[in-house]
């Protein structure tokens, strides 16, 4: 148990792994972006206008306005999760890219951190595009300066879900495992993080459960930035998300190290 929380050996050379991923991404970015953005945009307009057509308002705002901030977070969550499950797993097992890299002065910690930073970067890319869609649809009601903390939040959500995905990658015996990860870990968050409806009408224990999900805090913060109903209490989400991220990164590095270095 102790070895999972061992201090990881991470250096600035993690940036070299990030660069490597960026270089390879340049070849595939179009297909990649369509995959990452298609779904949230369809949710935004499909549900926003479809269900929104039957609802005069939710919590005092049009339905599409209610779901838009959460969908930025969902986009960030799924971008990071895909990158650091399927992407990282392929680099670790099939392609043996990790093995090639750790024969150089880089450590496993550098490789894992580089992949996590890259996953967060992909969250930032797709989250930003989602934000542009929301700006264009005139759904950003808060002051434009709130875009800065919003993007910081997107990046942190990216780091969090990348490191969580890395843990899944370390534990996964094959690609099949990831379908469990997505349906059992991410889908509940998708539904219960308060993106599509307020949690207030759920039984208390479900509400309590939802507050254990990091995505719930992210969605609350995002909503406060996008709708402009901002209070400093919302900022409490940042230390929660960052704290979880640090724990997940430490566990991820140790688990991947166990898997590769034998």
């Amino acid at each position, binding site marked *: 148990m102790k070895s999972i929380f061992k201090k990881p050996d991470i250096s600035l050379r993690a940036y*070299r792994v990030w660069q490597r991923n960026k270089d390879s991404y340049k070849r595939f970015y179009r297909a990649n972006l369509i995959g990452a953005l298609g779904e949230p945009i369809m949710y935004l307009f499909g549900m926003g206008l479809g269900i929104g057509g039957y609802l005069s308002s939710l919590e005092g705002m049009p339905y599409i306005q209610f779901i838009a901030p959460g969908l930025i977070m969902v986009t960030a969550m799924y971008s990071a999760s895909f990158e650091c499950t399927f992407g990282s797993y392929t680099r670790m097992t099939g392609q043996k*890219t990790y093995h090639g890299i750790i024969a150089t002065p880089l450590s496993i910690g550098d490789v894992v951190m580089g992949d996590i930073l890259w996953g967060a970067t992909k969250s930032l890319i797709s989250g930003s595009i989602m934000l542009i869609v929301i700006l264009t649809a005139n759904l950003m009601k808060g002051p434009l300066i709130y875009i800065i903390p919003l993007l910081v939040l997107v990046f942190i959500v990216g780091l969090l879900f990348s490191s969580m995905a890395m843990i899944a990658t370390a534990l996964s015996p094959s690609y099949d495992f990831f379908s469990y990860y997505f349906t059992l870990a991410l889908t509940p968050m998708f539904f219960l993080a308060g993106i599509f409806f307020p949690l207030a009408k759920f039984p208390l224990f479900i509400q309590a459960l939802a507050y254990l999900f990091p995505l719930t805090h992210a969605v609350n913060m995002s909503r406060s930035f996008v709708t402009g109903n901002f209070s400093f209490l919302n900022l409490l989400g940042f230390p929660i998300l960052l704290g979880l991220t640090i724990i997940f990164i430490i566990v991820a590095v140790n688990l991947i190290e166990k898997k590769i270095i034998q």
Partner: protein
Amino acid sequence: MSKDKMITAKNIKKRYGKTIAVNGISFSISKGECYGLLGPNGAGKTTTIKIINCLSPISSGEMYVCGMDVEIFPRKAKALMGVVPQDENLDPDLTVVKNLLVYARYFEISKKEARNRAEELLKFLNLYEKKDSLIKELSGGMKKRLLIARALINKPEILILDEPTTGLDPQLRHMIWQRLRLLKKNGITILMTTHYMEEASQLCNQIAIMDKGKILIEGNPLKLVEKQIGKEVIELRIDRDKEAELLIILNDFDFAHERVGDTLYLFSRDGQDLVKFLISHDYSHLLHRPSTLEDLFLKLTGRGLKE
């Protein structure tokens, strides 16, 4: 520890669970040497290389690369080595030249320097025309050459090759040997594993034969063969029941012998007279040849199938 020792292993043991992969080996490799680790599959060669390359923690013992303990200074030790792994692990998401440039970045080599070295190395290994190809467009031999180029991008003090020519055609094998000899001339220290005895005799000035995690014998390959086997080998196809009769009439000659299957091997320092004698006694179904490293290898590790 003397200064010109590039690699020093001190009583290295490595266990995976209950199996012992390396069981207390010690050796040292001097600067400019080409050191061959030979042994059947599962002898512990690849594990030994992984330990040197800081990719496998040691169960007990110490390993030094250029005087640095690999468990304490893995990053510094890895910066001095170039590794050609047994399993190809080129980056399939990048082109040939980009593979080298990205790898150079892992060693913090400047962009300009990396570009110069990549070009030089691609020419050195006859890959320059392929520089913009994708990895999946390369043949097995090209991939191996690119792996060697990649291992040289950081101008390593030590080049480590794990079965560098397994699965390659003879032309390519000879080309790679030539390149390795050139590198050796330039003073690079080479450590290689192989189970091609010809490869070891062509390249290595020092070998160690491993089996079951131990080093059985170590030294200069030519001297080892001569000392352990003799200069010449006579292979004789002869039935088992006639063997005793033959050995009686050969009583005056000085030789060692070993039977494997349908063949009787006679090892001798000077086989000419022995061959003449055999032919004159109607044992004409024979092969007379110089002894090789393979004879030594088989003598030490056994002729039975290793599984």
